[in-house]
């Protein structure tokens, strides 16, 4: 699971109001190399919940001097965009789980794939 995906995910257990962001408990993290596309990163940034991204990076030990708030004029800052590219797309949680902040319900991550299947009563 990449952090770009994590930023979009929320708990969909019935009755949960504040199911975002899901808490990451990672036991195995991998960093892959992916071709940098500045335009893609630049376009994704407005869709992100920035504080949730910084928090998630922290949980994975990947904070890497990312600013706690978005810098203005980031579209032209390639160094910044490369940092964002790395944290969004190259860092991957392989094993662990995602925990709903409200209900405590855990969704396991195995082989890089989060299992979001609900139980009968959820």
């Amino acid at each position, binding site marked *: *699971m*990449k952090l*770009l*995906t994590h930023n*979009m*995910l*929320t*708990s*969909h257990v019935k009755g949960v109001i504040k199911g*975002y962001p899901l808490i990451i408990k990672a036991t195995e993290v991998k960093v892959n190399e*992916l071709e940098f596309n500045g335009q893609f990163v630049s376009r994704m940034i407005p*869709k992100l*919940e920035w504080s949730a991204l910084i928090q998630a990076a922290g949980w994975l030990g990947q904070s890497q001097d990312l600013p706690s708030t978005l810098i203005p004029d980031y579209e032209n800052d390639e160094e910044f965009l490369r940092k964002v590219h790395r944290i969004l797309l190259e860092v991957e949680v392989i094993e662990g789980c995602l925990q709903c902040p409200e209900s405590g319900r855990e969704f396991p991550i195995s*082989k*890089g*794939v*989060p*299992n*979001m*299947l*609900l139980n*009968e009563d*959820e």
Partner: protein
Amino acid sequence: HYVALQRDVEGDLLLGDMGEGLPFRPGMFDGCISISALQWLCNADKKTHSPPKRLYRFFSTLYSSLARGARAVFQIYPENSEQLELITAQAMKAGFTGGMVVDFPNSSKAKKFFLCLFAGVSGVLPKGLGSESTDRGVSNQAQFTAQRSRFTNMKGKSVKKSKDWIMEKKERRRRQGKDVRADTKYTARHRKPRF
């Protein structure tokens, strides 16, 4: 999903049941593509499953996870017109507009159904392929509106050739004393075009 893992696909994978709803924040996506998946929501695999409820849960969460003006296209294999109606009814209930586009409507082999949905704004449906050979006058498109006119027409009569219409006609002929076949589970069942 094992195939995708082996091929090391860019992007990401999630495991889930679409009938439970999509687990995304609002307004995340500009587009959605689905291939041969939606029709499975019409089957109740468990006793606790209610197909209309699951379809609605899927469509309503999809609607919220799409950005305004986004589009969703589903290539589907509907078993019959009832399934098609069930699907489109729940999509409309969730707030989508749009319609069905059919490629090669006259060919039972090549015929393909595409449910095209628009979130938040009305859109123009693409033209279905194979529309040159419309000798049987079969339309490639069915745009659905907010009006629910599939059960009766304006005069309050059942839509011609629908199951209701057939049952009423049989009953009418019985009253007239005519010889009418007994009703079975096959009565008014939808037949394929070649029938």
